[in-house]
């Protein structure tokens, strides 16, 4: 409960081959360093869950860690496509990638249902689109009071949630501010969780707009300054937009990607 340890130790304890894991962060506070640690530890057959798989999931997929992707928008924000994701989805390289595709509203509600201990969530969504025909986890549900038909999606309860945050105290209480995305939901929905943080402090000074995850809701906290780069950590560093653009070239080619992986992650 809120145990402070190293990144490699936490990943080794929590992430196992075949697990369903969610690395979340909506543009902000994406746990990229933790993703690299999973690659280094050579995990395989993971079901990767994330609303917006961006370059960290492109890297995990390209490195062969993934068996399945559950997502709502897979792209390099503001740049274009995720080439490693496309190569896996279209050509099965380096391994076939099963996909389960939702909308943002559906994914956000799936995490919220997971956090709430409910088996499903109800939303106004998907109706009239081709998504329900392709995604088994989208079903109609009828309001028992009005008879109106809405949409149900099942809860997401990953084996492991991993997020990045600004600060934790020595009891493992985690403080997050700025865009908080689905950080709270994914941690509360998952069976276990790891939070990487910029700083570990003696006391969490209250801040406007901050949320706090009590240490007892988090399994491990790891001190990983810069752990969200090239995404950003408000109050610590900005988004490295240049790297997001550079990723387009690095990732377009299998060899270039593998060279990058060797020099930047594995070595």
């Amino acid at each position, binding site marked *: 409960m809120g145990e402070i340890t190293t990144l490699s130790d936490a990943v080794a304890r929590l992430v196992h081959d075949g697990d369903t894991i969610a690395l979340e962060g909506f543009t*902000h506070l994406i746990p990229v360093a933790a993703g690299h640690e999973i690659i280094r530890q050579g995990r395989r057959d993971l079901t990767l869950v994330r609303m917006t798989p961006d370059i960290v999931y492109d890297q995990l997929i390209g490195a062969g860690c993934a068996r399945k992707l559950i997502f709502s928008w897979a*792209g390099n924000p503001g740049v274009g496509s995720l080439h490693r994701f496309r190569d896996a989805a279209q050509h099965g390289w380096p391994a076939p990638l099963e996909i389960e595709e939702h909308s943002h509203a559906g994914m956000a509600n799936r995490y919220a249902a997971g956090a709430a201990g409910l088996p499903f969530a109800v939303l106004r969504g998907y109706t*009239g689109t081709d998504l329900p025909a392709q995604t088994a986890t989208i079903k109609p549900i009828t309001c028992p009071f009005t008879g109106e038909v809405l949409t149900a999606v099942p809860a997401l309860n990953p084996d492991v949630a991993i997020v990045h945050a600004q600060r934790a105290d020595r009891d493992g209480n985690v403080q997050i501010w700025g865009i908080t995305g689905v950080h709270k*939901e994914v941690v509360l929905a998952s069976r276990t969780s790891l939070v990487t943080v910029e700083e570990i402090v003696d006391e969490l000074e209250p801040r406007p707009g901050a949320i706090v995850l009590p240490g007892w809701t988090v399994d491990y906290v790891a001190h990983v300054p810069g752990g969200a780069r090239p995404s950003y950590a408000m109050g610590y560093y900005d988004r490295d937009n240049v790297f997001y653009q550079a990723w387009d070239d690095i990732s377009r080619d299998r060899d270039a990607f593998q060279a990058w992986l060797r020099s930047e992650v594995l070595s």
Partner: protein
Amino acid sequence: MTRPAHASAGEMMTVAAARALKDGDRCFVGIGKPSTAANLARRTHAPRLVLVYESGTIGAKPGRLPLSIGDGILAETADTVVSVPEIFNYWLQPGRIDVGFLGAAQLDRFGNINTTVIGDDYADPRVRLPGAGGAPEIAASCREVIVIVTHSRRTFVEKVDFVTSVGFGAGPGDRERHGLRGTGPRLVVTDLGVLAPDPETCELTLTHLHPGVTRDQARAATGWELRIATDLTTTEPPSETELSVLRALEEA
């Protein structure tokens, strides 16, 4: 005073989209041209435009264009920042947003949008696109939708390979049948002109051509037999103010 020759097709497109926003509107903004158009509108004729980004930032007033829907400047300048489940459930879903902006990889004559896969087989796509993101529910729940998209036969197709977001479905009455509460696409703004749904048939109809663009160019760039409004109008070129504000925004 206006110097249309100065405006690129992309600038014309952004300006036309910005003009479609009314002061005080609550606008659900995607990154790229929608964000540029919304920020341009807020700096010109619509100072009280409320920008809502799916990252949970409500009433953002960025001093420069954000590069992602989750840039720090959006959170720092917002009236309030809420979680992602909340932005979809409490703010988008109940119809609190007036205008939603969408892009498209493919668009059909009824304004249905594909951003999922190109090709007939979902399981083995010719091109795997990013997917739905917030679009299906933006298309369903905003009071109205503005689509911003480059005009070409690759994009303007007879039939979209995949319906990611519903425009008017198969035609009149389909939105109601699906229980979609917004009124659907009001405008499609392209680099060639502007299309709007015919009030009777819901078919997208060319209502404006941007300065210097011909009907034939628009027809040639459309993958179905394009209907042209009887009162087809030439878009007012960007004013000096619109252009200078837009360029200042893009350089900041």
